[in-house]
């Protein structure tokens, strides 16, 4: 079966010589809910940026459902929805415009965009805020807009880079339910998060990245045996023995 995402020997070296991703390979099966963990600066966001076109890979190949994400980037990008860690929007645009314009970039016709935007405004409780400028929204509402934007074109591969950072418990749980629904309906999801509880609850496969390399990768069950995910994470990322001891 063609993987939803196949990354092979990916490296990314920035102009100043910083190696952000170092010979990274990983595969995500279609329909999987994939947790991508690692400390800050480990290379999670850079990997995601290479997959989605925000960064240019230095070497290696990336395929999205068998389509080369560099050579056939337009076809590959049609299949991906990205909710980035940082709010990369025009702060003066309204919530509705942000979602509608993204639908437009992905080639959706006006009627399709209207239907889908209405649906997403409803789903994320944004109806009463849809005409407000992004800068006027609270952190939680902003995060909802970003998620709605990622979903507008109904991507087959949804990439969520810390989607619940800074959101309240209620929205986080609502979002978890929604992501589980999407995943049940066939959307492959790649999730990065610093909340291990979130990853443990949602994901079926987990990969841990440290200093640009995958240091552990496998089904969630493998991480939960023994001392649990937090212990596995701290061990894999080379945390201080005191920290590991505190968990074990």
């Amino acid at each position, binding site marked *: 079966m063609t993987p939803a995402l196949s990354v092979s020997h990916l490296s990314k070296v920035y102009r100043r010589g910083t190696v952000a991703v170092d010979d990274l390979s990983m595969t995500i099966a279609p329909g999987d809910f994939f947790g991508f963990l690692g400390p800050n600066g480990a290379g999670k966001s850079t990997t995601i940026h290479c997959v989605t076109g925000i960064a240019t890979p230095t070497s290696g190949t990336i395929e999205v459902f068998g389509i080369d994400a560099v050579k056939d980037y337009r076809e590959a*990008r049609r299949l991906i929805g990205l909710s980035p860690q940082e709010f990369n929007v025009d702060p003066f645009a309204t919530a509705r415009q942000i979602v509608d314009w993204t639908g437009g970039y992905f080639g959706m016709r006006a009627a399709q965009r209207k239907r889908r935007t209405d649906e997403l405004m409803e789903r994320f409780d944004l109806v009463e805020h849809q005409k407000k400028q992004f800068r006027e929204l609270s952190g939680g509402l902003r995060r909802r807009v970003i998620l709605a934007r990622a979903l507008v074109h109904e991507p087959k591969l949804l990439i969520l880079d810390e989607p619940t950072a800074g959101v309240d418990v209620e929205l986080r749980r609502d979002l978890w339910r929604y992501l589980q629904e999407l995943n049940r309906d066939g959307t492959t999801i790649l999730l990065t998060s610093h909340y291990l509880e979130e990853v443990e609850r949602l994901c079926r496969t987990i990969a841990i990245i440290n200093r640009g390399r995958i240091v552990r990768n496998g089904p969630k069950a493998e991480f939960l045996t023994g001392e649990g995910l937090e212990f596995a994470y701290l061990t894999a990322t080379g945390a201080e023995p005191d920290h590991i001891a505190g968990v074990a």
Partner: protein
Amino acid sequence: MTIPMIVNWIGLWTIIRREMTRILRVPIQVFVGPWVSALLFIFIFGYVVGPRIAMIGGHRYLEFVLPGILMMNVINAAFLQSTSQIYFQRFQRYIEETLVAPLSYAEMIAGSLTVVILRSVATALGILVIAAVFGVASIRNIWEFLFWVIAVSTIFGLLGIIVGLWAKNFEQLTVLNVFFITPLSFVGGVFNTVSMLPGWLRWLAYGNPFFYFINGLRHAMIGFSEGSEVFGAAVTLTLCAILAVTVWRLFSIGYGLRE
């Protein structure tokens, strides 16, 4: 859900819609400012300075100077539109919205340039309306007029994209305008004929591309010319082609766009 893509027309149209929305949020800055500035130029040259200056090539001084004023505003509108458009997208990082979308470089560039041209044409039409109120708006050849407005907008739109990609801060955005565009347009024959210049300075006018832009538009509007419009058009189209290739190349390597 989405339509098959050879050219992503809807994506292209969305870029245009988004930018039009952005500039219509600041109409005073984008349109009213240049129109008021042009109005003041027309008033001063039409009613204060103009009557004291002799006819030039059978034209009143205001008629002579109007194409230059119009061209200066077209150049400014084009350059400011494209620099601000690309720089703000980079600064606020919403350029990433288009980078992750199935848009080709050509579509991104074409979308930006379309808005540049629309803004420049709107600026030019507004100035023409003001000039008409003063009884000096004449266009001898509308196609020639449109050629100069659109071609020169394209040049400065492309140049603005390059500066917008290069600039690391707001200060750098203004460098080209302060040290290159404004001085060259002032010595390119906005306010004077080449024959008014001292002999040793005339070569500077003929070596200045702004002279050909202003001369071409002046020919389209009042039929007065001090140089070859055909040569000027060739210079203009060559600059368009060189800058278009440069911008396409910068987009394709991700200069200023991708990490």
